[in-house]
Each structure stands twice: as C-alpha cells, then as structure tokens.
C-alpha cells in the first residue's frame, strides 16, 4: 500500500478536535465524575439469575420496604439476570446475603450467581493505588522514551498517552459506564498499546530525519506517517477484531474491559498519527535534535 495523505495539512483541525475532546472529558470528569464500580467504591453487589423474567420494580419495592433504600436494581446482560447494588455505609459484609435471602423469602426464588462485598477502606486504597500506578506507568514510560529517543519524542509520547487516557476516562464519565478494576487494567493496556503505535511512528520519523536530510519537517512527518500507515491500520484492525470478539462473546463481566480497550485502540491510533506529530511540529523538531546518532541507531544508517 502506498499512501499519500497530507496528514499535516489537517493538523490544526485535528489539534482543535483533540483539545476540544480533552476539555470536554476534563469537564465531565470534574463535574460528573466517574461511576465507580464495586472495586473502588466499596459496597455490596449481588448477581442473581431467575428462571423467568422478573419485574425489577417489585424487587425494588421489596428492598425499599425492608430498609434497603439505597439499593439499585438493574438487569445484567439478559432479562433473567438481575444485579443489585447496595451502598454499604457501615461496612457489613453480610448485607448482600441478607438481600438475597429476603428476595427468596418474598417469592423471588433465584440462584445466587455471584456476590461481592468490598469494604470502604479497601476501595479507597485501591483508588489511590490505581491512580498512583497510572502516574508511575506514565512517568516510567516517559523516562524510557526519553532515554531511547529524545525528550521531544518523549513529550509527544506522553502527551499522546495522557490524551488517550483522559478521553477514555471522559467517555466513561459522559456515558456513566461502570469504572471498575478491569477497566483500569484495560486503561493500562491502552497505555501500552497506544505507545506501541507512537513508538513505531516516532521511530520512522527519527529514521527519515537522518536519511532524508533535504526534506522539510512537515513533509518528512507526512512521509513517515504514510509509510507506517499500512502497519498502523493492519495492527489496529487485527486488535479490533479480537476485541470485538471479546466484547460480543466474552460476557458481562468483561464488557467494560473490552469497551475500554476498543476505545483505546481507536483513540490510540488517532493519537499516534496526530497528537505525536502535532507535538513534534509545535516543538519544532529539527535535524540537530537527532544529529548525533545514538549507538543503537548507528547500525541503521543507510548504506550508500
């Protein structure tokens, strides 16, 4: 495949779009926040499966009548499966089972599929750890890219990663999807994936800067993006293929996880094209930045 797309022609539009999306995400995260899953929020969730569909309203009524005002009752995957969440203020690990027994006693006889209780302390610790882990990951990757490439690339890479992570978080916030530990895991995987893309593009830009010395930076970046576009599209496609398989067939428990990854691949592919290149353009990457080849790069110098 030979692409000749003038990516950089649209870099302003892409830049504006990115900034817009980023800002909306930040706004939503600030004002709406995330719907935290059980892992982070603490509390109780009970997953019950029934032989025939049940009226959620009657379940709600039974719960409200028995002092569980703060409970949510929703279908989970199918109309036979019901997920009940109880906000648990005083950290009692047996509320969920009481709820299950209560419903059984009231004639809603079902099978307990899964049951989870997370104490408030564990939840808050995990929130801190998760946030910290994310920052540590970003920082270590920044260091690695700075060490392997050059700080302008590192800034580009980390901006791209921050961009991807914030926009995915923003989407989870806007659509009020459950943010649990598996989604956090997906987000970290997205960091890895998106970086993968970014590095491939950066690598090519670096190579072209060294070999095609007479070109303008803008054309050079365009050339690099076009050269890697085939690979970027194929990899994104194969990854999306398996992720859709996971999203459709993997079941409710990892829906959020696959969703976050699908979004991550889409946003990550976009950001490796536009965000990184845009950053490099804004930081005015010049020949001199790469003039002294690193030892690792030496063997790749073009044969005459």
């Amino acid at each position, binding site marked *: 495949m030979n692409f000749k797309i003038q990516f950089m022609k649209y870099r302003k539009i892409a830049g504006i779009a990115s900034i817009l999306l980023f800002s909306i995400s930040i706004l939503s995260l600030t004002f709406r926040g995330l719907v935290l899953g059980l892992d982070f929020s603490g509390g109780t969730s009970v997953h019950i499966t029934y032989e025939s569909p049940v009226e959620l309203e009657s379940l709600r009524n039974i719960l409200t009548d028995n002092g569980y005002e703060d409970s949510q009752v929703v279908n989970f995957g199918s109309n036979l499966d019901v997920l009940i969440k109880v906000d648990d203020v005083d950290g009692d690990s047996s509320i969920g089972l009481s709820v299950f027994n209560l419903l059984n006693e009231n004639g809603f006889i079902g099978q307990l599929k899964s049951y989870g209780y997370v104490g408030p302390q564990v939840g808050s610790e995990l929130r801190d750890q998760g946030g910290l882990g994310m920052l540590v990951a970003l920082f270590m990757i920044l260091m690695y890219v700075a060490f*392997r490439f050059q700080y302008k690339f590192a800034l580009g890479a980390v901006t791209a990663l921050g961009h991807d992570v914030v926009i995915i978080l923003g989407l989870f916030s806007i659509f009020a999807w459950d943010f649990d530990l598996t989604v956090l895991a997906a987000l970290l995987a997205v960091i890895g*994936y998106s970086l993968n893309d970014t590095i491939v593009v950066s690598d090519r830009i670096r190579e072209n800067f060294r070999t095609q010395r007479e070109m303008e930076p803008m054309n050079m970046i365009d050339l690099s993006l076009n050269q890697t576009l085939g690979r970027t599209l*194929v990899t994104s496609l*194969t990854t999306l293929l398996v992720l859709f398989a996971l999203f459709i067939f993997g079941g409710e428990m990892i829906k959020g996880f696959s969703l976050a990854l699908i979004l991550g691949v889409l946003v990550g592919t976009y950001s490796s094209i536009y965000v990184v290149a845009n950053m490099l353009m804004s930081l005015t990457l010049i020949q001199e930045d790469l003039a002294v080849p690193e030892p*690792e790069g030496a063997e790749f110098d073009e044969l005459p």
Partner: protein
Amino acid sequence: MNKFSITQYLLILFVLILGFTYALPNLYPTQPSIQVAYTDSGKSADQILLNELQDILDNNEINPQEIFLRDNKIVIKFDSLDDQLDSKTVLQNKLLDKVIIALNLEPSTPDWLKEIGGQPVKLGLDLSGGVHFLLEVDIETAQQGRLELLLDSYRKTFKEERIEFLNSSIDDLKLVFEFKTRDSYNKALSRYSLDSPGLSGLQYIITERPATNTLFLEYSDVALREIRDYAVGQNLITLRNRVNELGVSEPIVQREGASRIVVQLPGVQDPTAAKKIIGKTANLEFRLEANSRTSPLRKEEFPFKENEFMTASLEKAVVVSGDRVTNASTGFDESGFAQVNITLDMQGGRAMQKATSGNIGRKLAVLFVEQKSKSELVIDENGETVIEQSTYIEKNIISLATIQAVLGTSFRITGVGTPQEASELALLLRAGALAAPMKFEEERTIGPSLGQENIDKGMKSIMIGLALVVIFMTFYYRVFGIAANISLLINLVLITGIMSLLGATLTLPGIAGIVLTVGMAVDANVLIFARIREELKDKDPQTAIRDGFSRAFITIFDANVTTLIAALILYVIGTGPVKGFAITLSIGIVTSMFTAIMCTRAMVNLIYGNKNIKELKI
C-alpha cells in the same frame, strides 16, 4: 543467504518442545477424586490411614483408580462420579469425624509429566467458582493487649524495686507512669533503658517529662513490626486450621500486605457456613473441675480429646476463653520435664487470678471447642442426590491439671507428658487463639455455574478472535501470513506452557489478556512484513527479507518494552483477577516477540532461504 545456523534452529526447537511439553498437562481431563485428612490438624495422614481407607473401600467393593499419600492428605482417584460420592459416604460413615473428606477434581497428568513439574494451569476463583475473603487484622488491639501486659509487669517491677509511682495508665497507645519523686523517676528511666534493647533494635520510645515526673513509653517501629508480624502470623496459623475443618480441597490462606490475610476457598458455594467457621472466636475454655459442692445444675460432663471414653465433670462457668490467650509455648520445668507456658492478656489474667485464688488444690481444665462441619448425602426436592453440609459444636478436654498457686497472666502446665505431647498441647492452645481480632474487608462469591460460563465465554472469544485474525492474515500476506499464523498458534501454546510451568493462575481478565495478545502479537509480523514490502521497491527479495527483519527489530523491541512496563505496574497494583491479566499480558509480550521474530524468520528462511527468487508476493 537468509539461513539460520543449526544452533539457531536447535534453540527454536528446544523452546518449542519445552513449551509444548509443559502445555500438555492441560489436555488431560480431570478425574473425580477425594482428599482425606485427619480432622486433628496436628496429625498428618500416614500409611496406616491409607491402609484403613483401602480396606473400607475393598469391603464396600469400590475400586479406586489410584490411592496415594500427598503432603498430609490421602488422595483417592476414581473412574466415575458415582464412585466418588459413594466412597465419600461409606468412608465418612465408617470413620465419622476422625477425618475430613473433601470432594475434588484431580488432574490426570501422567507421571512422567508430573516428575518434570508438569501441571495444568491453575484457575482463579472467577473461573472455578468459590469464595474469597480478605480479612484485616486489627493490629491496634494487639498493640493495646501487649501494652496492658507491659503495664502490669512494670507495676510489679516498680513495686519490687521500690520505685514509687502515683498514677499508671495506658493513654493513646502509650504507657504513662507518674512518679512520686525525681529519684523514682530516674530509676524508672534507667530501668526502661535497660529493658529497651531487643534482638532487632530498641523496643521502646521513651518521652521524658521531668517537670511532672512523668514518663511516656510507646513501642518503637521495630517493636510494632514485630507485634504486627506475630499477630498476622498467629492468625494465619489459626485460620489455616479453621479452613482445614471446612474440608476444601485446595484452599489458599496467605498474608497480603502488612496486615491482611486472603482466604480463597475454591468450590465452596455457601459463604455463610465458611464465614461462621473462619470468623469464629474463642475456641478454648478454661473451666474449674466440679467438686462435691458444685450443684448438679452448674456442671457438665466432657470427654477427653485423646480418649473419648474418659470424661470429667466441669463447672459450667467459663473462667477464661481462648481469645484471651496471647501465647503458648513449650519449655522444661526444674526437673527437666516438659511443660507448657501460657500467657493471657490483662483481662484474662485478672479473671484467672480471681478464679484461682480461692481454689488452690482444685483442678483446672482446658476445653477445646471446635465448630465442625459434617456432610451428608441427601435427596433434594428434584430427586437428585446432593451433599448437604451442616455444622455442630464439639468440646473436648485437652488438659486437666491441679492448681498449685494463684495464677495470673502467665502460668504453666506441668506434667504434660513427652515434649512431643507438650508441643501438641501448645499448638492446640495457640490454635484457639487469634492474636488480634479480624474484620472482613472484602468478600466475593462466584457461583460454580458462573465460573464455567466464564471459561466457556473466554474460550469462545479466543477461538473467534483467533479465527478472524488468521483469516485476515492469510488473505493479506499469503505465504508470510501463514507463517505469522503458525507463529501465533505457537505463541498460544507457549503462553499456556509458561503459565503451567510457573504455576500462574488464569483468571477471566487473564483470558482477555490472551485474546488481546492474539490481536497484538501479529503486530510484530505486520511491522516486519510492511518493512519487507518497502525494501522490495529497490532491493532484491533476499536482501529485502533480511533488512526487513533486522530493521523492524528495534521498533518491535521498543514498542514491547513499554507495554511490558505497563503490564508490570499493573501486576504490582492489581489484585486477584487483574493480576491474572498482567501475567498473561507480560508472558504474551515476551513469547510473541520470540515467535514473531524467531519462529516466523525460521519459517521464512526455510521457505525462501536458499532459493533464487525473482519475485516475492507479500
């Protein structure tokens, strides 16, 4: 050109054989089996028990497929589920509560594989079904308990050494002594400094307030760490014993972080019963033996633990319960006989003092209280035979000894027999005690049907994802695509092999990690192939292949290292299922680099290596 040396081929072959061999145990089906262990956690199963079980099964004409000793359990494998259930019933009926019998599915890994460490991949709770608890050990209470003991002992010491104090108390986890004179204050200060050095460093932090003649003493970080480690370690032992009583085949009880304990019980469906046994307290009772003056209404008969035909009658009132025991150890008395040293906390010590002061010469009994579960086969409303578990309480006397003096927080039991018997008694005494109370911080139950569903769904996703990628690669890159596909399959086998070899646990997010690897693993090959296509524009095919591979390598390496960084961080911060994702992702990254670069190259070399090719279709 484009040939691998024989060593390179051998290396690839070696890795492949290794991977395939260790992945192999996963292909063997599981077999119904039972695990038999002595109810008494101090006793290990032995050849005698094995023979006894064998005889009972023979008498009932049940032919086990295999019967052997493993760790401290006896494992019996059967050909059918019926045999498994029947034998559980006959064995339990015959041996009653002498043994705990757990139903299990044993892997049928052949012996030669087992000998080289081959085993199937372990399944996480989200795939096997079961109960998970996370318990927090309350260290502050343990610390408070220690301080109370310390307070008591310093009051005694100061009295003996004529160090006069006005007030003594514990305030905000600090020991506070207010002394009468500056002289006493100084003496106490030097006493503290004398006591403070421990094996691992200073134990006390002393704050001086000479203006009011007051000394504050608190535990140093070193001492606190020791208290915490002791409390958590002790609770771990106690929990292991309790979990043992549940008769679960592969339970996990381990420390997590500084002060938490994880308990995982695969296959357990009723968290309530499990919680009752894990969360129970006080399974020791100190009681006075009834004498002629005890009213019949206020006494009870109990059997001895070693000999159930011997009984003793005890008072109903409990002097001290097991949660007051802070330590029990063995030692030797003046004449060299074994003894058991017992330490109670302050409250226990006070109660013991009160009960023993008027009763020197009478006997004091230690009752071992066990909450036991028994399982029976019952027919449920659908006419199916199911195993029903119920719990009951059993109390046995483990020691009955004459009170020689008024007892306080620390005392000893002498005349306990051999050192071996003494240490068993100490173990029982400790087993009853939790060094610090615990709280359920997290609880999860996954029903067995959900576990199986998760496995099925995960497998389906892998299969469909794999099929889609394989079809795409074949059409897009043809011969090279097929080489990449073979590498992809090898990659899956290697991931399985390494997971099995490491004994890593597979979870649902772990399966998702494998699915993701399938999608991303071809990336390395895509990079290489794209590069070869480019190189072909101005190079001959052989050079293009060579340069394509070598130029793509650094890119692939950089890209993978960064993903690996993310995966490792995930492993550190993640818990349970998410750790499983980090594991499969990390392993997948490493194996995919090997297969995409080495295996694909080997195949390409074998196909095109020695030929003079004019045109390369890629």
